[in-house]
């Protein structure tokens, strides 16, 4: 039995899988949650793994798995309500590839934040992207995404990017300029604007920006736990410069 696997509760055939897991500025989780609510997505699968902490989340009196996949109109979104420990990063990446392969997903989009020290002075965060194959970036440029040319990525999205060609599934990582360890709804809005243009869906960003303060208050617990996990994962490596010795 695999260490982590997604269990279907409904059969769907999505073309795209959007991954919004807890990471820098909780950009992925905030964006994914807003998409799920605004597009009226339905739960289609959940993650089963002994590596997850022994807990359930309760919504409207109903116990739920903390990591779930939602779907509507050919787009699936995976979101986690808990911080993910470093030892589950590789198994969850394999489980996502397995689920994507068995559901014939064509492109996986990982959405996250790119911590910038001057975030306080940025009104509208820019969105950067990196893709496999690299040619996918041509289409993303039309949606306002700039290519991330140099750097390092750490976390689930790094593994999805690294292993996507091996699994024969295209992969895009979208990163919005964000705070490192403060929930950043503004960065989430930037990501959703670009992703919506690219995938052809429309979400109303007004409620996200109007509720930004409420989100920042309520997401503190998850952000604090996520910051703890990012530290264990040596997330600060993203601020280091890779050695350019050969191409």
């Amino acid at each position: 039995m695999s260490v982590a696997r997604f269990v279907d509760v409904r059969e769907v055939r999505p073309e795209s899988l959007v991954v919004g897991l807890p990471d820098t500025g909780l950009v992925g989780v905030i964006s994914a949650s807003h998409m799920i609510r605004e597009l009226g997505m339905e739960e289609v699968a959940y993650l089963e793994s002994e590596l997850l902490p022994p807990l359930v989340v309760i919504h409207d009196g109903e116990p739920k798995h903390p990591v779930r996949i939602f779907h509507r109109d050919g787009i699936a979104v995976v979101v986690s309500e808990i911080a993910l420990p470093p030892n589950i990063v590789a198994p969850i990446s394999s489980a996502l590839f397995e689920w994507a392969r068995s559901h014939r997903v064509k492109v996986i989009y990982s959405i996250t934040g790119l911590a910038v020290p001057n975030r306080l002075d940025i009104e509208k965060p820019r969105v950067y992207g990196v893709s496999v194959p690299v040619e996918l970036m041509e289409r993303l440029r039309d949606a306002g995404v700039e290519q991330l040319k140099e750097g390092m990525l750490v976390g689930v999205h790094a593994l999805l990017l690294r292993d996507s060609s091996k699994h024969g599934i295209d992969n895009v990582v979208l990163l919005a300029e964000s705070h490192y360890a403060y929930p950043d709804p503004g960065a989430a809005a930037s990501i959703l604007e670009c992703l919506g243009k690219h995938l052809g869906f429309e979400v109303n960003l007004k409620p996200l920006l109007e509720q930004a303060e409420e989100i920042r208050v309520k997401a503190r617990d998850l952000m604090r736990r996520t910051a703890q996990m990012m530290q264990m994962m040596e997330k600060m490596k993203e601020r280091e410069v890779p050695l350019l010795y050969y191409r």
Partner: protein
Amino acid sequence: MERRRRSIFEIINELFREVEERFEEVFEEFERPLWDPVKRELTPLTEVRDEYDEVVVTADLPYVRSLDDVEVSIEGRVVTIRAKLSRPVRHEGWAYGSCDYDTWFKRLTLPYEVEPSGFSIRFKNGILELRLKKKRGRLIRIE
């Protein structure tokens, strides 16, 4: 003046005290609840960055409208931040019951000694930024 040698028990006690203080700091950072329904206080997320000759402390303070609603005190290496929310935030949950929170409060320990008067402060989009000058060491002349 002759220095009194410390006994082994005093040294061990001091070590234990240091370990306890460190443990309390870690507990404060990761385990202490961020909601205090008794005092109606919320604990803000904070970051401490080391930037050359400065220590930069930031705090995320949603619902705070201006610097007039923020109080900051610095005593030795301890920084205390207290801020008034523009409106109470209601939170309901089995762990904390139902409560309206109206204050942000956080006390944190800096990694360096800082100059008591050498600091700048700014507040933008609900984020407080304090820049504190590190205490200068003695300059060693190399001949």
